[in-house]
């Protein structure tokens, strides 16, 4: 199966400015060197606690934030991607004129393929292909615009209709498909409930016929009974519209239910990544183990052993040395305190950034 999205070494640092001269005194490393592949038609879950950088990752992947570093290939052939990556490696081995010539070649290639290097106009055109559904059903809809125009804004921007009538038809069709009464086209968002607003957000994202939907905590602000309705809708739309999902969430039970692949983030890094069943059955990273053990289960008959984590998530401004998780880890070794672990792949398709698996294949 081919990949719709391939992200390499994505970084997003926010500068911290201080003093009268607004000098940069440090960085918040919200996303710190993550790589991720999303195959077509699948749902990849990105889980982590608040402040782990998952929302920033989602917004950088949809190019809402300009990344500090990294590449994103969207719907690019594997050969092209390999070509760019090889060229990048090659440049490091070269020097002098040859190197600068190759640099130029890489630059032109990236301007064509890497989403983050596209010229602004070009990028805005390609935004059609990857859309986002936001977390807050109240903050994500402009209160001063009727919902029909909210849903139709993408159509307006990309001139996707010929007549006013056609525009209205497209919008009402989207409303019907997402479960909003099409006769409410001229109402304002404050007249809808949280679940319905989230449907409007989904309709807006779908209006451009995207290939990828980044779902940033789409159900976490909703009531339990409404959550299922939205998850059900998303499942239906995935098959109807041939969508690929990146599902960002903090709720591990929902992720397990909804996603096929799961990546766990901690302090800006992906610490473990695997197909769902592998990740939930043999959790390799101590953080994943603790995280999953902390999830409450709606069954008073089972008592579970809980791994209680000591302390709190450190500040992403001054993360600890070595492995970022070591101060809270219950299996911490000496090496963890000094050296950051590489990404190991102890089992096929199951990668983990932890020294416990030293000796397995290194993939990054």
């Amino acid at each position: 199966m081919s990949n719709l999205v391939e992200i390499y070494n994505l970084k997003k640092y926010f500068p911290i400015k201080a003093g009268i001269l607004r000098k940069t005194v440090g960085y918040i490393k919200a996303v710190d060197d993550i790589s991720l592949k999303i195959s077509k038609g699948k749902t990849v879950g990105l889980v982590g606690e608040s402040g782990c950088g998952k929302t920033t990752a989602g917004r950088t992947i949809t190019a809402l934030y300009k990344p500090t570093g990294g590449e994103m290939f969207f719907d690019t052939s594997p050969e092209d991607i390999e070509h760019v990556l090889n060229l990048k490696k090659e440049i490091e081995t070269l020097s002098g004129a040859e190197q600068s010539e190759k640099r130029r070649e890489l630059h032109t290639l990236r301007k064509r393929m890497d989403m983050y290097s596209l010229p602004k106009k070009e990028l805005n055109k390609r935004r059609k292909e990857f859309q986002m559904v936001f977390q807050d059903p109240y903050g994500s809809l402009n209160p001063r615009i009727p919902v029909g125009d909210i849903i139709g804004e993408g159509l307006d921007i990309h001139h996707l209709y010929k007549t006013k009538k056609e525009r209205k038809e497209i919008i009402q069709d989207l409303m019907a498909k997402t479960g909003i009464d099409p006769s409410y086209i001229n109402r304002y968002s404050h007249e809808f409930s949280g679940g319905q607003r989230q449907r409007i957000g989904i309709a807006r994202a779908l209006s451009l016929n995207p290939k990828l939907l980044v779902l940033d905590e789409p159900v976490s602000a909703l009531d339990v009974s409404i959550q299922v309705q939205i998850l059900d809708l998303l499942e239906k739309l995935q098959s109807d519209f041939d969508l690929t999902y990146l599902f960002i969430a903090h709720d591990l039970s929902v992720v397990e239910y909804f996603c096929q692949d799961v990546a766990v983030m901690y302090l800006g890094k992906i610490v473990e990544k695997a197909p769902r069943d592998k990740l939930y059955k043999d959790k390799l990273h101590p953080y994943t183990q603790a995280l999953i053990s902390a999830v409450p289960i709606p069954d008073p008959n089972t008592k579970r052993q809980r791994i209680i984590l000591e302390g709190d998530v450190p500040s992403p401004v001054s993360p600890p040395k070595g492995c970022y998780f070591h101060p809270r880890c219950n299996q911490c070794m000496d090496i963890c305190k000094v050296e950051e672990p590489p990404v190991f792949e102890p089992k096929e398709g199951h990668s983990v950034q932890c020294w416990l698996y030293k000796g397995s294949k290194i993939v990054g």
Partner: protein
Amino acid sequence: MNNTILEIKNLKTYFHTEEGTVRAVDDVSFSIKDGEILGLVGESGCGKSVTSLSIMGLVPVPPGKIEGGQILFEGKDLLKMSEKELQKIRGDEITMIFQEPMTALNPVSRIGDQIAEVLEFHTDLDKKKRWEKAVEMIKLVGIPEPEKRARSYPHEMSGGMRQRIIIAMALIQNPSLLIADEPTTALDVTIQAQILDLIKKLNNQFHSAVLLITHDLSVIAENADRVVVMYAGKLVESADVKTLFNNPKHPYTKGLLKSIPILGKPDKKLHIIRGTVPNLIDLPPGCPFFNRCTEAMEKCENELPEIISLDNDGHLVRCHLYRQEHTT
């Protein structure tokens, strides 16, 4: 251990708005026994928070008004007390912790001083003693280096730690009842586990009864002894925790339990409760769950079901399906 500490009888708390009367809590009755954890669960707008505010006497008036019922705390009706008498009970015998640990603390005052302040109002300990007691409480809620922490400010602490401080403030007077309104909703799962463990531990240690209000059935399952389920301002089902989860009776409870994803059972087919909660302003005359119920009958549309007792252990349900069996 089995004394009833708080009994709510037919509580009605309404909000009179320009659009009409919102029956936020409508004829709700339940009781809390000494030392137990009672879970109050429901979706947003079901009236669970208004219930807790009614107990604390913190319903904003106007637009809110308690239209009827009794709230008996150790036999005395809180609704008949003066504001002064209430203040004595509040913060001393009944205390409350809120959802948002960020805003419940004063940002410009030291943690230790804030905890000690509670004692200033309710006891006649001197300043030094109060400070010592505050440090002791910080230690009790599991914060390392309590002496140092007492001298720090709220912004120097994480959300989880702040919530511990708030729990310390709530428990310092050894209250007979602790109301915890969504105490972990703003926190991460790992921190949530810590806080709930702490509440449980302190419940064992101090024998304070706890009213645990949450939307999260899993939190209820793991922590509560008994459960009250609310929907659209009404009590729909109440039972001890095992009965409720093993043998739910009300279609809403059944649907809700079937609709949450369970860790470790990803292939479970989730049940979808269609539709939305009705508007509390013009509630239909019948069962409030009628429009979403899969087992609705004809009479459900126009006739509000009575609360029916299903057994002798206090399994109550408000549903026409069980009317033939027993009636109270």
